[in-house]
């Protein structure tokens, strides 16, 4: 099992799409953090809605852009399994380990590290940003680090579980494009609709569950949770973990059982 796990890590390391994904994470987090932090305040009533630069609230709202890494962790998890079917490397994988359930478990485990890598890259870029703006004269290190500590651990944990969720999604859907569209579509489109109509269900969906998990350290109000209705952080974590395991299990008993031709 350890050998299988390290083989999965080797698969991550030896293709450029993994590094590309980490690069995109750094780029997106860096660009949007800067954009949100320095959005023109303008004049009039709108200006008062934006947090004053250098304040704790300002650091909170800019650091929360780290959440973008969640979507990339999700994609990483999806690629981890659908990429094997796309490039037919699933044949040598199953030849080396014909017990397909074990392959899925090792992918779930490897995706924990993959998701963590994405989360760390996002967090590192945010930290670099934080020190840069403090150096430029906005706020002070104390405030910056305090707010960073509010946001980063939750985002990291959520990124890990999003990658696990991605493996589950990929195992069930098997098709790379479909899995990515469904994965991103659920959080971006389906979830807000359900959340609006039926909040008691919506709060258990991946995006809201991730926000709940992030609230373990974060100042939730600063996040501006959609309806202010979040489940407990541990419930959010368990929900995300559940999605990953249940979907992967369902995949292992349905799509992954089919013949490899």
């Amino acid at each position, binding site marked *: 099992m350890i050998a299988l796990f390290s083989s999965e890590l*080797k698969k991550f390391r030896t293709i450029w799409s993994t590094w590309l994904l980490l690069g995109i994470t750094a780029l997106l987090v860096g660009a949007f953090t800067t954009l949100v932090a320095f959005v023109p305040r303008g004049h009039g009533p709108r200006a008062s809605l934006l947090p004053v630069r250098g304040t704790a609230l300002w650091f909170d709202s800019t650091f929360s852009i780290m959440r973008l890494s969640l979507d990339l962790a999700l994609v990483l998890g999806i690629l981890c399994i659908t990429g094997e079917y796309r490039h037919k490397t699933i*044949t040598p994988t199953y030849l080396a380990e014909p017990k397909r359930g074990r392959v899925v478990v090792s992918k779930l485990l490897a995706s924990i590290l993959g998701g963590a890598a994405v989360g760390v890259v996002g967090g590192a870029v945010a930290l670099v940003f934080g020190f840069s703006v403090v150096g430029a004269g906005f706020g002070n290190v104390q405030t910056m680090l305090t707010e960073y500590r509010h946001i980063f651990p939750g985002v990291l944990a959520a990124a890990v579980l999003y990658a696990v969720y991605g493996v589950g999604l990929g195992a069930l859907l098997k098709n790379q494009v479909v899995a990515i569209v469904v994965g991103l579509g659920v959080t971006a489109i389906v979830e807000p609709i359900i959340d609006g109509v039926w909040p008691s269900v919506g709060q258990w969906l991946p995006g809201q569950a991730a926000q709940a998990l992030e609230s373990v350290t974060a100042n939730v109000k600063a996040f501006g949770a959609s309806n202010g209705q979040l489940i407990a952080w541990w419930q959010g974590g368990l929900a995300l973990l559940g999605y990953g395991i249940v979907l992967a299990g369902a995949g292992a008993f349905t799509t992954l059982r089919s013949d490899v031709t």
Partner: protein
Amino acid sequence: MVAVDNLSFVVEPGTVTGFLGPNGAGKTTTLRMMLGLVAPSSGSALVNGVAYHDLPDPTRAVGGVLEASGFHPARTARNHLRVVATVSGIENRRVDEVLDLVGLGGDGDRKVGGFSLGMRQRLEFARALLGDPQVLILDEPANGLDPQGIAWMRGFLRWYASQGRVVLVSSHLLSEAAQTVDRVIILAGGRLVADGPLHELLQGATTSVRVRTPDADRLVRALEDVVAAGPGDDVPTAVRREAPDVVVAEGTTPEVVGPLIARHGIVVYEMTSSGESLEQIFFELTEGAERGVRPMGQPPALQAPFSGGPEGGPVP
């Protein structure tokens, strides 16, 4: 759709067994069933008496060379092998060894996306050899290989089998197979039509004798008398003139034609016998099965055990 029906065979160690059949006969499906990639609706395929799925370390027990097996285009050849090697705890040294063995020693750090079909086939071969397995199962391994590659592979498979290992190789290239294999298993329409040593298969086949003589007319008359006398062992079944000075007697051997020529005192410049090729036998055997009819004139030595599902070969 039924791809393979009621197929049963055993592959013995120490031999190269050819797994032959026309396109769509079920060769690939059978081999993939043996390797645990395709689940048979009934029956089982065993290696050393164990299903592939239950082998403790399949990479060291069985090497599978499959068509359309995958490579990530962005992964280097060496990393492709290392990923597989890691699962079985095979050292990096062995990875370099098999790369050298298949002639990819200098291309290990190139991305597979830039490989030709032949190079991919060599890499696939290298992957199968990683665990130095006792059993090699190869699906159309000659595909994409250049003549040197094919010659090398033929020699390699023979050497592999000579060490008491099992080699099962599917092919639709019969002349190539005839040079490589000791035993043949012929599949047509998902059913077994022949299973036995190659020489027995060829023995049961008819031969013809071709004679070049200035006395063609007399030889034709003499042969026609024998044909008219009725059928029997190696008695010619037909006589024809291929050219003014060339006579061909079908279904007979030089051992029959030679004494006949001596008895009649006929001058002969040249006499050759030609057997039916594996190709001709293959057509005879597979044609009937393709039409859903049992083939006629199947040599008795090639009776096949029909029972159960596909079965892999045990190794002692």
